[in-house]
């Protein structure tokens, strides 16, 4: 699936950056919940990965928030999204530890796809924004690359843990033209 509409205004750009903030906050809050659900002293590597993912997301969120500030829009408070994750987690949590890894993989792949689409939409647009276009793109490209590295980290751990067949959606979404290139297939 490809982006068919370029970003045309400060308002639309700010809204998309807010959505990026929310995606990062969801990753941060869900990773924290997953880690809590694991027994103390168990799954050390998985816990470390989740902690690292949460920390990375917090960093991404802050970088996006700075851009949102410059566009004179509202930040999306982390505690608001954390509360929503908390409220819905019972219905959406993975069933087991393999599921936790797939959830984390889905988080990273979704974020990668989001930034990839957003970068494409900005590049396609000839609009002038209140933020410096070069710095905006530089920030988003850097975050996208970190998401790609995140996909690789989760995939490596999944291979070592011998995780089973991905749930519907994860496998189908990779390698299809409809969703564009995933970081896994792009790096071969």
């Amino acid at each position: 699936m490809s982006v068919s509409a370029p970003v045309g205004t400060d308002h639309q750009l700010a809204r998309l950056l807010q959505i990026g903030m929310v995606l990062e906050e969801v990753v941060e809050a869900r990773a924290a919940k997953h880690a809590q659900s694991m027994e103390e002293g168990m799954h050390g590597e998985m816990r470390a990965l989740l902690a690292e993912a949460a920390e990375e997301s917090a960093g991404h969120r802050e970088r996006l928030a700075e851009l949102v500030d410059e566009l004179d829009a509202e930040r999306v408070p982390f505690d608001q999204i954390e509360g929503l994750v908390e409220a819905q987690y019972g219905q959406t949590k993975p069933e087991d530890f393999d599921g936790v890894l797939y959830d984390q993989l889905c988080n990273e792949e979704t974020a990668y796809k989001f930034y990839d689409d957003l970068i494409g939409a900005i590049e396609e647009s000839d609009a002038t924004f209140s933020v410096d276009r070069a710095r905006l793109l530089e920030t988003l490209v850097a975050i996208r690359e970190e998401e790609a590295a995140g996909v690789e980290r989760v995939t490596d751990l999944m291979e070592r843990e011998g995780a089973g067949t991905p749930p519907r959606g994860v496998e189908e979404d990779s390698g299809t033209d409809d969703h564009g290139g995933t970081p896994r297939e792009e790096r071969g």
Partner: protein
Amino acid sequence: MNTADQYLKAIYLIQREEDGPAATGKVADAMGVSPASANEMIGKLEGRGLADHEKYKGVRLTDDGIERARDALSTYCIIERFLANVLEVEAFRAEARELEPVIDDLVAERLDTIIDRNPACPDCFDAEADACRYLEVGPEPEGEKPAD
């Protein structure tokens, strides 16, 4: 959501309202394009086995087309509910229409983990109100409706 999915969603809603084939003119109106453009896309959907077009009657989705249209409608509902309930955007309908082509299904699925969508979704989507009937919001302000 790509353009084909936006068309499938529009055809599905008209077909549901009419309880029969969707007239090409209505599809063109819903998409804000010329009848010629709508016809071209309907031809593509037919080629992919997602719709059947009958001259002078209109277009009807196949079972595969209906399945994809319902997924697209669910994605749209997620975007609207997210904007209305999480970001508290008053003009959520207008913004959802604007964001629809930019928001991928994967992204919508993640946003879905923090909203409280009705299990009946997307059957609870009210095409006339352009919103879920369980979404507690007022009618769309005049200025934000798409031009006829």
